[in-house]
């Protein structure tokens, strides 16, 4: 019997709220020798973890429900919240079953957290995962392939087994399927945002951070079928893109508040890892070279990546507005988020040049007061409806 939207979303919500990561613990306990590798935003090649028979586990901070006690002792007040709540998760043993942690190249705070992890949890495999900012195959590509090889070797030690090219090819195919479904969900929401509220889509993607990829793919298929079948009224909302939330996550209430204020979110940059590589990655040939090539030439644009062509800076956002038939952009960045906040003026300029309305505000993962955000988003929606 097919599942209803409510059933699917309830499950996702339960996964989202579970700060002990019970589903991942159960996955690990189900068979002896299973390993779990955590990763932080914004991108790691999950295919290689999966190829080693391990569970990639997205660690996106502690969210609004986690009281940070120990974590605050490690950070000054002017540093964002995600590293402190991540340390809180670790110190309180909520992620004590994690065998490895990957810290992607996104900013200096997450970069330094990789070293803190080495000092604080020396028995856990911890790696700063660097990616090239040079996009030539023979320069950045060669460097990246070697980085991937080093990562693979490190993960082999965690897994206690060799990871073959064939293993990685199979995993690439599995993730290709997952990316296709993610894209379908995003496209579905773009076409009928009233049928796929953003907070539901958000929870659906969050589920992909903790579930085995195959299960997540099935969950998205179920959701699409259920959401299509659901009869939901279309509201007179404006259509906006939410930008800047690619690392520390907003409280779920913030996502809901924006929609309640009259904005359909038709695109966002939450959990970019789910759709970082654009389109299918080839499954034949050298799998590491394929992952590298895809990263260099067909991957998402975000603040953590250098844009070599100054005339193209922000163009991806202008294109997204057009492709998603959006009417405006809301910049919602975490407080003290260097990548998002340093990028914002350039993106805002690109939008202004294209005559696209935009507003901005900041949040923290534990922001409690939604009324100001609701008012701001509501005024923005009214402005678009009345004058654009």
């Amino acid at each position: 019997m097919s599942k209803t939207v409510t059933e699917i979303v309830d499950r996702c919500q339960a996964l989202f709220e579970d700060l002990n990561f019970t589903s991942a613990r159960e996955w690990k306990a189900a068979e002896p020798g299973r390993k779990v590798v955590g990763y932080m935003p914004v991108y790691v090649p999950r295919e290689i973890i999966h190829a080693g028979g391990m569970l990639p586990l997205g660690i996106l901070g502690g969210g609004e429900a986690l009281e940070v006690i120990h974590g605050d002792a490690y950070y000054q007040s002017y540093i964002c919240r995600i590293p402190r709540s991540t340390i809180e998760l670790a110190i309180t043993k909520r992620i004590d079953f994690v065998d490895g942690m990957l810290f992607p190249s996104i900013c200096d705070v997450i970069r330094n957290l990789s070293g803190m992890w080495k000092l604080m949890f020396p028995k856990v495999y911890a790696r700063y995962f660097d990616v090239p900012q040079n996009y030539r195959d023979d320069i950045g590509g060669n460097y990246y392939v070697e980085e991937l090889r080093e990562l693979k070797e490190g993960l082999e030690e965690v897994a206690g087994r060799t990871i073959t090219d064939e293993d990685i090819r199979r995993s690439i195919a599995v993730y290709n399927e997952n990316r296709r479904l993610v894209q379908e969900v995003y496209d579905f929401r773009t076409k009928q945002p009233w049928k796929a509220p953003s907070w539901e889509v958000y929870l659906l993607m969050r589920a992909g951070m903790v579930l085995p990829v195959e299960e997540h793919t099935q969950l998205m298929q179920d959701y699409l079928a259920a959401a299509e079948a659901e009869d939901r009224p279309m509201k007179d909302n404006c259509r906006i893109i939410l930008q800047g939330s690619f690392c520390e996550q907003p409280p779920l209430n913030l996502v809901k508040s924006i929609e309640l204020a009259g904005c359909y979110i038709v695109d966002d940059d939450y959990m970019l890892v789910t759709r970082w590589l654009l389109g299918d990655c080839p499954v034949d040939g050298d799998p590491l070279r394929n992952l590298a090539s895809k990263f260099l030439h067909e991957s998402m644009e975000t603040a953590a990546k250098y844009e070599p062509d100054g005339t193209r800076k922000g163009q991806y956002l202008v294109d997204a507005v057009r492709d998603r038939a959006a009417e405006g952009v809301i910049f919602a960045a975490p407080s003290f988020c260097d990548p998002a906040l340093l990028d914002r003026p350039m993106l805002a300029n690109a939008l202004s040049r294209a005559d696209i309305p935009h507003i901005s505000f900041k949040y923290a993962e534990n922001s409690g007061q939604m009324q100001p955000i609701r008012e701001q988003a509501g005024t923005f929606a009214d402005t678009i409806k009345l004058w654009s």
Partner: protein
Amino acid sequence: MNAQAASQDVIKEPSMLKQKAMIAANFDKLTSANETGQKIAATYVPGNLNELIMCFDMGNNLPEINAINNGMRKKSGAMITEAEKQGHSEDVCTYVKADIGNMSRGAIAPNGKPMPVPDLLLLSYTGCFTFMKWFELLRDQYGCETTMLHVPYEGDGKITQNMRDYVVKQLKEDVIPALEKVSGVKFDIDRLREYLRKSAAAEDNLVWVLESAKNKPSPIDAYFGGVYYIGPIFTAFRGTDDAVEYYKLLRTEIEARLAAGKGPITPEGELTEEKYRLVVEGPPNWTSFRDFWKMFYDEGAVVVASTYTKVGGVYDQGFRHDPDHPLESLADYCLGCYTNRNLPGRVDLIEKYMKEYQADGFLVNSIKSCNSFSAGQLLIMREIETRTGKPAAFIETDLVDPRYFSAANVKNRLESYFQMIDQKRKGGGSAAAA
């Protein structure tokens, strides 16, 4: 106070006068580029490729140095406000905002003349994520030629051959062609070798000077004085005859101070009694630099080693620019800068300083603007306390935003800290001037 206050005139030694003249001449050179036709590259201090830039007869303009200059001349506050009015977040690096605000106000150099628009933005992305965004912002403003050198981070605490190859290949195939194109000068590797030879000579003397602080009393202050000592080698002078001469001169002066058993020179004279020997982590505050320094020398505190003086090269751990391996050596230089080292490596280095320099304590000056330095410093502090048993303290200021320098709070914290060191000594810790 411990400094001789016979005269309120700041003591200027020959090396200081020489450095002042070098800096003034460089600003004159930069601000007259439109008339002379000299091409100008803008680049950053950590991982700066001054020798390479000189191979193309280009001038080197460093935005951080301009921001520091404006900070010390109390001009940065208004510039930061200006940038914030333009939409730059109050949360981000104030070097960036001071630079952007400065541009909005005509980019006036300390000599009162406007800086030229750079012909090339040479983004050496070394040890600081903000650099990348900063250059994108500058490119947005200037619209000039840009080239990027991505320097991978030493995540596992070592330089791998893959990292080195990546940097060298970028130098060969991106950076050098961009410099050739902008300057119209063909690259001559022998010219680079010659500059690197001079760099290494200057680096030898810099290291001698920095290590002179192992003596008791230390003849230098390796933080407040140290920022002057690193000036030439971290900026537009590494590889020049001027830098070689400067460091010879400086070494001679410090040798004389050492032989005479003298302490460091402060803005108010010579420090006569070394009471506390400190290792300091993090950049200084620039907007109240003198006031900040005074809080130390008034108490007889001398910084014997600092990490900030390694941000543009960790020479005291053995690295030298190598004329026999010019591009590889530039790569290793960039890869090895302090903030490009992982946190365990930073802790190890500080622990080494604490021991080798016989420090009484460890102080972190945590900078709001600089996550590259600051994220993780509280853990560094704990680690150092645990490993050395010496007391540590933590203060918070900013680089060039005067709003984040609270003199009373900092002074209070420092005074309590010095008392803590005294207490520790009474309990059997080390004494400063043995």
